[in-house]
């Protein structure tokens, strides 16, 4: 158990990459990219986890209670915002591509060859 959450992050990262590489549709590609990024959430939170710790919110528990790391959570919050914004931008670009070229399959668009 002690290293499994880290391995999960690695799994998500590689699987997401596989999705990006093999994708035949920009919408699918964007979702796979978001999956890839979610590996970083899992990795960060898993690193900061403390056995039998509470959330780092001392509203109902006294300060000094054993709690998980707050910094990784702050980083992950930023990370989630980054993820959704990049995804939205990419989808907007994909919609433009669809309008101009009539396809969302990256493999069919190779005008930039060479």
């Amino acid at each position, binding site marked *: 158990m002690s290293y499994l959450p880290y391995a999960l992050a690695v799994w998500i990262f590689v699987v997401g990459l596989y999705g990006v*590489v093999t994708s035949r549709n920009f919408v699918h590609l964007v979702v796979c990219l978001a999956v890839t990024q979610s590996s970083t959430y899992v990795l*960060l939170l898993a690193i900061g986890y403390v056995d039998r710790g509470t959330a780092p919110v001392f509203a109902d528990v006294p300060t000094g209670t054993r709690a998980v790391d707050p910094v990784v959570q702050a*980083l992950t919050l*930023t990370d989630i915002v980054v993820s959704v914004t*990049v995804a939205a*931008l990419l989808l907007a670009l994909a919609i433009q591509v669809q309008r101009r070229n009539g396809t969302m399959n990256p493999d069919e668009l190779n*005008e*930039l060859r060479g």
Partner: protein
Amino acid sequence: MDVLVPLPVAIPLIAAAALTATGHFLGRRADDLVALAASAATMVISLLLVFQASDHRLAYWFGGWRARHGLALGISFTVDPAAAGFAALAATLMTASLVFSWRYFDEVGTLFHVLMLVFLAGMCGFALSGDLFNMFVWFELMGAAAYALTGYRVEERGPLQGAINFAVTNTLGAYCVLIGIALFYGRTGALNLAQIGNTLAGQKPDGLVVVAFALVICGFLVKGAIVPFHFWLADAHAVAPTPVCVLFSGAMVELGLYGVARVYWTAFEGVPGAHAGGLTNLLLGLGALSAVVGGVMCFLQRHVKRLLAYSTISHAGVILIGIALLTPDGLAGSASTVIAHGLLKGGLFLCVGIVLSRLNSVDELVLHGHGQALWATGTLFTIGALGLAAPAPFGLFLGKSLLEESAAEHGYWWVAPLVTAVTIVSVAAILRVAGRVFLGLGAAEDALLSPEPDEEREVERDPERSSVLMLVPTALLILAGIGIGLVPGLEPHLQHAADVFRDRHSYVATVLQGRIEHGSVGSLELLQLPAASVAWSLVSLFGAIGLAALALCRHRLVPERARRRTHALAGGGLRVLRSVHSGVIGDYVAWLTFGVAAVGGLLAVVLR
């Protein structure tokens, strides 16, 4: 004076937000003015910071959270001449580019200015930050603004997916950086660069440290357009509006390489110990590969923006070579190359912008002979290209000579001929364009060049458009780039900046202990012109002119049989090289994965 430190980020951001809030009520020229004023103010403040920091390094803690007992609580900007200089370069190019845009776009919405300002803030923040996660945040901000700008007012109908290729590869690079950050945080419990470095120093590098470092530098190398992470660059340049290309080639790519250097000398320098030579070899290899691939691909283009983009890849390789040497002179050479190349390449892109707006094309063959009326643009374009050839003592000469000397001193004799050779090839390509477009030399057909899709223009341009406001920033950039090597005292200042940049102990002392360490620049002597460097510079200058002439007039100069022989010899290799640059995002990501695995694996081998 510390009060200036947050301003290069705060001013453009506040101006951008204000423009968004009021954009519906202001006219086009008010937008232009606000954006220009904010960008110019950022430039001035960054320049002031360069001078301020040349005396002593500044550590500025946001929120007033100074480090306690050597532990960082908040986020710091750590300003040394290199950091402030990068912010100043980005702001200078941005200002020139905004002046240029004044007449370039027929109509431009508020949102274009907003994104340009946010882009500038991202670049400044990335350069100044002393916190690894904070660097990631600015890296992403730079990215988000850049992806949107790439897709804006697309100048050609077809290859819009260039913007997507750019966004996807750079986003994946950012994830690599983030995973590296998470690993570093797991090991050291720190995000501040000085503190990470302090904790890691002297430890034997284990898997975690090696892989975390590999991931962080690979992520930055994606931005730095180093082979095999470089594919997105030409695609993005082909799509992005020309004023945006100025910043991509002139500042953004170099910031990626700056990130590598910054992280190495703050966080990682204490780790490799005796194995630093292995790291040098690895980075030298990547730099040399990029320089060669960029140069050759550059020569094969007829789409002038793509051609210049590949030339940027070639120069990025050279800059990485200077960093890879891990010497003060190498670093100073890289810094000098960054400045001169940024100004010159920015000016060259602006020339292309003028050509595009007057002649409605960026295709070298289509434009054959059509540029003869644009003599001023043509002259500037040619001067800019010659500056890239590093003729002593102009343009890229100072940087090239510094890093060649340093390489020779450390036994890398092959660096000088290699850099000279790739300079010849990439500059010859630009000169070929100048000859064909502005002088009408050579033929209007060239089987060597990559085929381009049929062009279909978005907007009909106005050939009568007054171009003074476009010519002035172009001329200023190119002349500044040419003359930069003549600035008295530049060389000792660069060397001082490089020394400061490499001094991890004083960095840690300033950031974590709050000690102010004064340094002084050596005497302001006149530029040295070492004989070997001057010889190489003459070779690259005349070689480039000669090769350009050969490319234009090879039907007259070279006998038919020799041409066919060369074609048979080189054709296969060129075909493979071309087909690798497929324009398909899946391929690019596969190469990116390959690159990360290869760099990580090689680092593991050389560092342990």
